[in-house]
């Protein structure tokens, strides 16, 4: 009987139920979106704070883009030593942190790796096969990063581990870390044979990064690493034993001296950094670099962060006001609906229905609408808007509050107003 009465209720109140359903759905989507936004804002902000707050980031590039200049430099006998000394000076500097990242692709013979991991794929380039020594390789997206960089960007492993200091010292097998998207392809402990800058290297997978791990790279504040293979930038202490090895190390070190200098954002520290850089350059007899200066993107990011933080309170106020308005509107509509329905409840009571039947009926009428709205907003947020998962759990609490609120309000209303069944108001006395 309860189900039949429910169906009849929805039939006779179709428009108003639809309105309440849409209103609650909008309300929930609004809460979910705002919550996700504030949550993400906090998350981004705390991450940003760690990386950029109070920091000045300067970029350094080498001066050997021109082929002639490059050739002139590499033919010098001590060119590699100069590069090594310069790099080691940068890495061991006291007044700044030196971060270096390169995106030199690597080659893998496994052709079954999906194209999205291939070098150039994201830019719409065709993925060419590379033929080396009668072997067909696939170019794969890869990033090389030094220890300071890994620490600065606070890279965390979702599975396995991230590098420690020993992993940056040359050894037989290179420990590599994979982006989250590689989960379906490799597992921790898998061994890979790669070709990197024409050199064959044996690698072992030591971990997978957390999903959506990102770094600041190529002026992109959110450079996502999910599709990348991360290699440690090894420091080659040993002198090269062959011309091939020398060329290999040279190419590596040219990658390594292009990077970022991070120091505290105040005059004293910046001055100290400049002085120390000059001293490193002098000691290494290497002055083939250009100092780009304070990175404008980071400055912009810092400004945005300040604005967002200041506006967070405003957003919270808007959200709260919107929530209150929605609650009032929903309760008002539900109350009007309840008033319309009192006729039916009274008829049921006259015919011998118990109060519990009416309250259960009212509870289900509201709960089903709220439930439908909840499922709809889940679909909208998770499938259409693809907004964070965490927010949905929070909203479950709101649903509970809603249902209980409605239940208490209407239940109490019923208890208070139906001590006497007013069947014919005008004939009361």
């Amino acid at each position, binding site marked *: 009987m309860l189900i039949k009465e429910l169906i009849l209720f929805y039939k006779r109140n179709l428009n108003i139920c639809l309105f309440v359903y849409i209103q609650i759905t909008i309300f929930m989507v609004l809460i979910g979106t705002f919550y996700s936004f504030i949550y993400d804002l906090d998350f981004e902000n705390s991450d940003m704070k760690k990386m950029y707050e109070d920091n000045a980031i300067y970029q350094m590039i080498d001066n050997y883009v021109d082929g002639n200049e490059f050739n002139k430099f590499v033919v010098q006998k001590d060119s590699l030593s100069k590069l090594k000394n310069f790099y080691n000076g940068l890495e061991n500097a006291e007044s700044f942190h030196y971060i270096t990242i390169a995106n030199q692709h690597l080659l893998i013979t496994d052709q079954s790796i999906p194209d999205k991991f291939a070098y150039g794929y994201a830019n719409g380039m065709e993925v060419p096969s590379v033929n080396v020594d009668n072997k067909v390789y696939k170019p794969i997206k890869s990033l090389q990063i030094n220890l300071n960089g890994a620490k600065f960007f606070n890279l965390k492993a979702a599975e396995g581990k991230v590098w420690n200091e020993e992993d940056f010292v040359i050894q037989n097998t290179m420990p590599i870390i994979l982006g989250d998207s590689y989960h379906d392809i490799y597992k921790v402990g898998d061994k890979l044979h790669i070709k990197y800058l024409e050199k064959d290297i044996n690698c072992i997978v030591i971990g997978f990064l957390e999903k959506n791990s990102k770094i600041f790279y190529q002026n992109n504040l959110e450079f996502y690493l999910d599709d990348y293979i991360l290699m440690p930038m090894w420091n080659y202490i040993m002198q090269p034993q062959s011309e091939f090895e020398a060329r290999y190390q040279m190419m590596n070190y040219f990658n390594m001296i292009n990077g970022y200098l991070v120091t505290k954002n105040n005059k004293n520290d910046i001055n100290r950094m400049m002085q120390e850089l000059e001293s490193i350059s002098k000691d290494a007899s290497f002055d083939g670099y250009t100092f780009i200066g304070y990175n404008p993107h980071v400055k912009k990011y810092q400004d945005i962060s300040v604005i967002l933080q200041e506006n967070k309170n405003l957003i919270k106020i808007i959200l709260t006001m919107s929530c209150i308005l929605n609650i009032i509107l929903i309760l008002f509509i539900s109350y009007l609906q309840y008033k319309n329905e009192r006729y039916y409840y009274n008829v*049921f009571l*006259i*015919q*011998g229905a118990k*109060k519990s039947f009416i309250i259960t009926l009212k509870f289900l009428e509201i709960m089903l609408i709220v439930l439908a709205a909840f499922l709809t907003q889940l679909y909208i947020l998770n499938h259409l808007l693809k907004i964070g998962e965490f927010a949905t759990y929070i909203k479950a609490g709101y649903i509970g509050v809603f249902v209980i609120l409605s239940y208490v309000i209407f239940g109490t209303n019923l208890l208070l107003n139906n001590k*006497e*069944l007013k069947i*014919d108001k005008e*004939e009361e*006395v």
Partner: protein
Amino acid sequence: MLLKLQHIQKSFINGRTKRAVLNDINMEISKGDYIAIMGRSGSGKSTLLNILGTLIPYDKGTMIYNNQKVTQLSFDQRSEFRKRHIGFVTQQFHLLHDRNVYENIKLPLNFMKLEKDKIKKEVNKVLEMLDLESFQKVSISKLSGGEQQRVAIGRAIVKKPDILLVDEPTGSLDEESEKSILDIFDMLHSQGTTIVIVTHNTAVSERCDKNYFLKGGKLSAPIIY
């Protein structure tokens, strides 16, 4: 004695003023009685009927049903009492307009949790008795006032109540419909149904065996025909 009221008092509070509506009401209803309670508009007839039907509680006094006190019942106990013993025909009929004649008559049996077959049998019996068979699938809103009144009576009697309480049954009916409805009450009375009708229409009270008059909150002694 089926139902007995002893020294019943009822007042309503309207703002700051308390208005006594029923004052020391004594009344006896025996099985098979056909009673009319007469009075002017606002005399408290409907309040008395609602107290008899346990729709509203009273302030003071005693109500005895089948030699058992039913003085102060809880809300749900009153519901249960109504379900088992009382059939109600209200002035505005209080039918459910989103369902048909059959479903309206069936309503009280739903709350009694009877088996489907039994419900069908009882409803069909009532439909036949009230000449409503051809209307059973018709929506309430498509019926005339007289037809709606018959459906309301059908809904009240389908559970075979001990007492049928009727509030102003002819208030909104034309002469022909009025006669037809009163004939139905006569028929029900002849079948042994106890009926209490609240009315100001003498055409109704003339058909009853016992007439009470309500004036100034007091109930007269019954005039028995």
